């Protein structure tokens, strides 16, 4: 058992590689936080379905709750704390106001390296036949 040196060296190398995502960003120039563009419609509405901090952190959970409510319980109207009502639909409500996907949704998603597959079904179809 004279391999102690090699083993410890191996563990250290493994540790460095395994924690790469955590320390790599610390020492490098990050790009600026993404700047989101609101459509005139979104600006006029001032508040989204819920508060901005909530939407930024939890829009995916909200969409999941919306889907279960619409598909499983046949309930399609969302009433927020202020009593404002929304039709629970990604394509028809969210994307109606935020119709500028490339300057809104994509900006944060690209920054955080997320590729949601929502767009496989819930936006316009660029591959359409005609």
């Amino acid at each position, binding site marked *: 058992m004279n391999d102690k040196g090699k083993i410890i060296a191996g563990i250290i190398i493994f540790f460095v590689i395994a924690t790469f995502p955590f320390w790599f960003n610390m020492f490098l120039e990050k790009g600026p936080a993404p700047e989101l563009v609101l459509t005139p419609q979104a600006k006029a509405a001032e508040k989204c379905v819920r508060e901005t901090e909530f939407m930024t952190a939890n829009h995916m*959970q909200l969409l999941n709750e919306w889907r279960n409510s619409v598909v499983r*319980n046949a*309930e399609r*109207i969302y009433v927020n704390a202020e009593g404002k009502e929304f039709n629970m639909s990604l394509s028809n409500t969210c994307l109606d106001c935020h119709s500028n996907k490339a300057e809104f949704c994509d900006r944060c998603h690209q920054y955080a390296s997320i590729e949601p597959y929502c767009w*496989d079904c819930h936006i316009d179809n660029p591959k*359409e*036949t005609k």
Partner: protein
Amino acid sequence: MEDSRRQFLKIAGVAALGMGTARAIDVVAASEGHGAQPHVRKGDDALTAKQWGMVIDTAKLDHERIERMIKACHSTHNVPNISAEKVGEKVAKRHEIKWIWETHFHNAFPGLGSNYMSEEVEERPFLVLCNHCEEPPCTQACPTQATFKRADGIVMMDYHRCIGCRFCMAACPYGSRSFNLRDPRPFIEKTNPEFPTRTKGVVEKCNFCAERLAVGQMPACVEASDGAVVFGDLGDPHSEIREVLREYYTIRRKISLGTNPAVYYII
């Protein structure tokens, strides 16, 4: 040496499990935390029922009307047309997606006819679709409840939960379900932006136009049928559909299987 290494691994494993459980509990607890004030409700003009059902007066169906009905359904719901021109005849047949389609008596009702039937009925076009059975074998088969029977009787698809195992397709005694063997988007002729398309790898079928019922509209095929189809609540004894069922003799597909289909046919 042997034992203490094993001990260490055992303790590490339990510790990892314990730490993981704590995180999991935190995540679950947090998601419940954002206030009880927002709530959901049905729309004001939403149509509700105990069991939606349909009566098709087959004598009123001609090819032109049927084509209109199929087109109404398939275009509203972005059902792809995987045509022979694009992929060849064999592949087009294999990859076909259809929610409602035309067939003949002997196919819609196998075993029911005879060799001496009226020629007119033998040649008459019949429309078949998901029967939204009261005892659906498909929802029983689904291992994730991605397909399930809703409170209003509609057998729904949750395309997000579907794992594409196709057990429901094996279970359906009527062949009502289609599977997306490939990306459907290139084969959609005109996308309806108000209804999502589907992705490859999930099963789909007629949904009795749940999204239209929710805003007070009749299903697309019923509207396009121009009176040939009556749609309503089988659970309401005073509904039009119950009147029709009392007045006419109707048949349903494969009733001996006990599925109790909600689609009736007047011959």
